[in-house]
């Protein structure tokens, strides 16, 4: 086994081992815990960097471990998984820093960081899965690892939110499992194959394949918060801010979207799915979710809930991009995986900062907050503009490619109005926040203001992460055409899929 083949395992271990070690740490050993966290994150980043190089040069990165007849744990790296792994790793690093600052002097930190690392391990494992079986395993593991994080506060609200989260995701997980098993029995081991595995197996019963697709998409759609399956997401908002951030940006929601991409491209094959008439179904579901989430977001006063509905809407762009045949739409959908992650994590960091520093939880309390916390609010604003799709923030690039993709195929033209309406709605629920933050004057005192210490508006560990991710959102938008940018990777993926 050479270095490249063991890379996926190393990447998993680089967060798994610190995670397990952290469980064993005493609550007080703050320094050691921080060291372990950061060490893991940095090591992982290093391995990921090697992997990016490897994938770019088409090295064979794969490892297998048999679990039973026809059931193999396969970890491998292709362009798509590298994209997702890189995203997770970078955002994990940032979120860890944020979480260290956020959870300072709160109980159960060892538990929290332990599960946090496990959560990332599951996400990365999901990204590196080489077949459907492995994917299902990590998909379920992710559910498990996130449950304690959602319930972390232990309040009745938190436990309730976690329970709802679990009810949805496990229900979805079962459907996914059934779909996966079914597919497995009729088609053998489902290795993710660029261009689609099933399209190479013409003898299969199309009707069975349609049903399986339905099962898989519903199973994945729960995590991706597609319309009737999204109910858990606003409830899961009770989690601590770093968790919400990670949940929305990378881990859970993205896992669902990533799965949809995998199923459509690497299991069915996009052209084959189109020939089975499956994509209009997915597209309609995604389009409706996009509009629905935005409309619901309009009426939320609670900031995190508004962001949650925004996530519901935004993540469906990925599914939408997947549902349109053609490389350009693929680029749009896949690159949004990254773009949405970076932008949404910024929003949640900022929301967490408002709540943590000033006790501000509601949009109606945010009057004049830009003056009190300029750096955070600036980061928030950049992310908001990106969400609306204003250049040069990253969101624009996604929308651009989605639009192009829609035009590229004749029958995707209906996507354009969806994009437009959604952008307008995004503006309608986001811009009033900016207005309040920057242009209104603070009327009364903040609900629970913490005394200012140090030279920044709040502790650096909390202030810098949103600033960093916002800059990242700006940079990946601005330098979209630069080599190794997410867009370039997405193009690489599209190129290899078609």
């Amino acid at each position, binding site marked *: 086994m050479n270095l490249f083949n063991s890379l996926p395992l190393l990447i998993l271990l680089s967060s798994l081992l610190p995670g397990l070690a952290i469980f064993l740490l005493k609550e007080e050993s703050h320094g050691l815990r921080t060291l372990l966290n950061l060490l893991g994150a940095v090591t992982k980043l290093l391995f990921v960097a090697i992997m990016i190089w490897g994938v770019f040069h088409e090295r064979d990165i794969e490892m297998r471990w048999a679990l039973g007849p026809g059931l193999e744990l396969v970890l491998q790296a292709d362009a798509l998984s590298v994209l997702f792994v890189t995203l997770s790793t970078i955002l994990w690093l940032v979120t860890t820093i944020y979480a260290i600052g956020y959870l300072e002097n709160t109980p159960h930190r060892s538990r929290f960081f332990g599960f946090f690392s496990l959560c990332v391990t599951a996400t990365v494992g999901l990204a590196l899965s080489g077949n459907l079986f492995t994917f299902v395993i990590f998909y379920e593991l992710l559910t498990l690892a996130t449950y304690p994080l959602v319930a972390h506060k232990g309040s009745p609200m938190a436990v309730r939110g976690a329970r709802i989260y679990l009810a949805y995701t496990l229900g979805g997980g079962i459907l996914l499992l059934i779909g996966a098993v079914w597919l497995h029995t009729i088609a053998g081991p489902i290795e993710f194959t660029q261009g689609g595995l099933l399209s190479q197996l013409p003898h299969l019963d199309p009707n069975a394949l349609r049903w399986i697709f339905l099962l898989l998409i519903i199973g994945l759609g729960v995590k991706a918060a597609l319309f009737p399956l999204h109910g858990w997401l606003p409830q899961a908002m009770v989690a601590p801010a770093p968790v919400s951030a990670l949940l929305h940006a990378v881990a859970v929601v993205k896992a669902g979207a990533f799965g949809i991409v995998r199923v459509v491209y690497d299991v069915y094959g996009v052209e084959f799915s189109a020939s089975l008439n499956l994509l209009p179904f997915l597209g309609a579901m995604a389009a409706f979710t996009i509009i629905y989430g935005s409309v619901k977001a309009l009426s939320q006063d609670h900031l995190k809930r508004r962001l949650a509905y925004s996530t519901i809407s935004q993540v469906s762009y990925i599914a939408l991009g997947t549902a349109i045949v053609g490389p350009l739409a693929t680029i749009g959908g896949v690159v949004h995986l990254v773009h949405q992650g970076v932008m949404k994590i910024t929003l949640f960091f900022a929301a967490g900062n408002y709540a943590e520093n000033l006790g501000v939880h509601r949009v109606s309390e945010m009057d004049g907050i830009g003056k009190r916390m300029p750096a955070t609010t600036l980061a928030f604003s950049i992310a908001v503009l990106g969400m609306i799709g204003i250049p040069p923030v990253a969101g624009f690039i996604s929308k651009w490619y989605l639009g192009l993709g829609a035009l590229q195929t004749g029958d995707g033209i209906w996507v354009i109005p969806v994009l437009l309406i959604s952008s307008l709605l995004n503006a309608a629920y986001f811009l009033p926040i900016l207005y309040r933050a920057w242009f209104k004057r603070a009327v009364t005192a903040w609900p629970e203001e913490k005394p200012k210490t140090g030279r920044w508006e709040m502790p650096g560990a909390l202030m810098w992460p949103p600033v960093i991710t916002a800059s990242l959102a700006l940079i990946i938008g601005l*330098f979209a055409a630069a080599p190794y940018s997410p867009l370039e990777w997405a193009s690489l993926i599209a190129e290899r899929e078609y």
Partner: protein
Amino acid sequence: MQALLLTSIPLIPMLMAFICLSDHWRRLLPLPALFALMMAFYVPIGTEVTIPWLLMGVSWQLDAVGQTFLLFSAVIWLIAGIYVAWHHDQNINRPIYRCLFLLAMCGNLLLIIAADLSSFYLGFALMGLSSYGLIIKSSQLSRRASRVYLAFTLVGELALFVAMLLIFSSNGSLLFSDIHAQNFSQTAAGLLLLGFGIKLALPGLHPWLPLTYTAAPLISVAVLSGPMMKAGLLGWLRFLPGGNAGLENWGILLMVLGFIGLVFGSLWALLQKRPAAVLAYSSVAKMGLISALFGYGLAHPEHYAAVTAALILFAMHHLVVKASLFLALENMRLQPGQLRWLMGAIVVAFSLIGLPFSAGLAAKLELQEVVTGDFNKILLVSGLTGILMMGHFIILIHRQWSKTRPQTANVDTFIPVLPIWWLLVPVAWFAPFLPWAMNFDTKSLLIIIVGIFILVGLQSFLSRGTRTSGLFRPGDVFHLITRLRLTYPLHWKDLNPLLPSLISPIAKQDNKTDSVSTSMLQPGLVWLVLLGLLLTSFLYLNF
């Protein structure tokens, strides 16, 4: 080197936007505009920069049209910037205003030098959105104005976005130079007319303009009505493959719309009681004229080049004059009762009317030369209404001036740099022509005299009262719409999640009944039945 200078035209204001957040550095605010102005002279036409890794690959270039736009826009940005740098007003003297002012300028300059769709769009969006913050003041009115502005701007951006998508997907390139008439989609053309039409306040798309111009700080209005508004025209020039067949129908539509804008804008302008509102509707009228002329160019591809050349000159003139007028209003607001500001405003207004030896006249003559046939009449209408509007404007500012006594400099409002405004007067009078190109035209003088007579006749009932009401208020159609109360419902019932209610109630019953009962009769009978079933299944159910 020149490429670097070209690149720094939009970059310096961007950088400055952050530096000027600090109160210490606010006096540096005009510098980027000064730099841009110098670059308009220094950077030679044809300078090109291509940055393939930025956005989707951008390309910037300074061509003749761009240079013209850059020059005059920079002048206005410079003067307005000086105002901002020294202003005391709490709406203007604050970091966020300065930052957004410079960002809007950055967007404006960027779109001028843009040679591809994406950087133009980037600049346009940056400019449009940043100016939201320029409009907003603490008054209720301006808040609504800024909301309306934002809504229109966003719709415009989206229309543009789709148009860009269409153009790119048919051309496969983002460069303006690759836009060809053959495969230019009609939908794209329509969307472009819509998107830039909003900026140019085409009738129907205009309600934001009077609302904004009357509510926003006058300095902001100066840059809005000057450089930013003309960006819409630049957009049409850049995006539409004019001079080619295929867009005639759109041209005719634009001519009709422009004419309507001209007539109704003028009418409404005459009904306004506030100088700023008059100027606002006058802008609607003038933009109507510009649109109509551009439509003429589209409808007559053979004249397109000539028409647009004249049109640019006319637009530049209007750019400078309108901005100067708004700044003059600001002067009068800051130092009410000062005769010199009244006179200055009147002089500039005369240039707009097209008095002999003014650039206004020169621009009109240019247009007359390129426009043929009956369409020439539109210029006549424009000339006449222009006189009426400006006359009305002059009467209003004069009345305002005569009502207030000259005041000595107030510490709160005094701006030491106000005299800088005088620099604008020669520019407004001559630009965009050279002073020795001015001439004299009897026909237009005749029109002016007729106009003055009409004005005197109308004056008695135009000037009655101080407020306009209903549909005639700034914003007109908009008030009709808001009366329908088309506001979205804020509190929709939360329908989800339904699922938790099914999962969460866990019955708190004891399981005693099942576990500790001592009778074995029932289970025993069940067991016997089971036994029977098993036996049956072995013995008889041998299928």
